[in-house]
């Protein structure tokens, strides 16, 4: 028979935990809303960028920008793995890390040399334990995702690609499907490709000074935008995942408190009965 005091103490600690998980759920919900707003604000820029790039790229040859160059013999691959900095968000980070690990193993089996750049402390820790020799750049998000960081990652990756240090750059991140679902996926970042199929027949643009010069500005930016979008998806997904995780944690504590309260009441009742029996039998003995 568990001690009454012990049960009471346990209920106390669980209730405290519950307060924490409930507060974290609320914080995550507020952050999720903010993250979704940020993503929403970034979308017009990204859409516009892609549309213009598609249009400009149509009028020029394939090799008009070094970042378009598709190499026949892909030997060196870089994976940019995006995760969150903090945990307590269910399987969000381990999901993307395992997905990335499987991806890397697959490319290695094909005979490629894979290097890893991590954005987010969780994926960094994951790969530090397993593949520390392959780690290249490591970024942490430090609060909210910024375009400046996406630009930094993009510039570094592009420079390596142009220099021939890598033949392909792949982004691995959690796609934000809905508040309940985030799925890891991989997207080829470099060589960069634009959607070639377009149905809209528009008048050609007058491009100053030349399409090539404009591409020189557009393509690196488009690469940065892809990274920024991936970082934003990760950010939104992180808060959604944490909200879900904290919600189920709160539910679990509720269940626990219920079971323990039941146990406590039973134990208390048993103690009272025992005392009564003692008194009654004591009175009878007189």
């Amino acid at each position, binding site marked *: 028979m568990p001690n009454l005091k012990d049960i009471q103490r346990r209920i106390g600690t669980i209730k405290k935990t519950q307060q924490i998980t409930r507060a974290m759920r609320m914080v995550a919900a507020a952050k999720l809303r903010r993250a979704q707003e940020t993503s929403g604000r970034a979308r017009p820029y990204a859409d516009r960028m892609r549309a213009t790039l598609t249009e400009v790229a149509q009028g020029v040859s394939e090799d008009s920008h070094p970042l378009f160059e598709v190499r026949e013999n892909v030997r060196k691959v870089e994976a940019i793995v995006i995760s969150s900095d903090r945990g307590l968000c269910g399987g969000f980070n381990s999901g993307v890390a395992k997905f990335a690990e499987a991806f890397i193993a697959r490319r290695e089996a094909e005979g490629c040399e894979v290097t890893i750049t991590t954005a987010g402390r969780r994926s960094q820790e994951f790969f530090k334990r397993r593949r520390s020799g392959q780690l290249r750049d490591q970024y942490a998000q430090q609060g909210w995702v910024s375009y400046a960081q996406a630009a930094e990652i993009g510039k570094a990756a592009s420079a390596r690609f142009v220099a021939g240090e890598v033949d392909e750059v792949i982004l691995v991140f959690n796609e934000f499907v809905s508040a309940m679902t985030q799925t890891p996926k991989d997207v080829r970042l470099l060589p960069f490709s634009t959607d070639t199929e377009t149905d809209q027949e528009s008048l050609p643009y007058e*491009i100053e000074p030349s399409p090539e010069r404009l591409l020189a500005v557009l393509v690196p930016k488009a690469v940065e935008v892809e990274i920024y979008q991936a970082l934003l998806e990760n950010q939104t997904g992180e808060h959604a995942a944490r909200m879900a995780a904290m919600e189920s944690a709160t539910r679990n504590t509720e269940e626990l408190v219920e079971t323990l309260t039941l146990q406590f009441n039973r134990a208390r009742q048993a103690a009272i009965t025992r005392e009564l029996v003692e008194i009654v039998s004591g009175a009878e003995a007189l």
Partner: protein
Amino acid sequence: MPFELTIVTPEGAAYQGTVDRVVLPGTEGEFGVLPSHERFLSPLKIGALEIETAEGRLYAVITDGFAEVNGDEVTVLVDSCQLEHEIDFARADVELSEAEQALDRVAGDEPDRYRHFEAALASARARVEVSRKKSG
């Protein structure tokens, strides 16, 4: 006949409005866009942007990007855009001299850092330019 101008950054739309004329810092030099301009695309460099509306003149400092002119719509896509009320004019001159000094200190063998400070300098210059135009 006025036209629509939108300045879009990754952080959201920085400006949206009906304007009469806009002067943009193109990589090949400044150029003005008036209503019914031809369909046109041009890269932009860091610099000052001038907007003329029915209510008056508005300045902004932008980083590099590009401009798209399409009939009655002009879209400016840039990394960041500072409208004049967001600029601290009192600090503009100080920032300019700081940026100049920072650039001087960077050795030639650090192209990344050099480019970074070069951009900071160009942006500081644009802010000073705007502050001059505002006061003069």
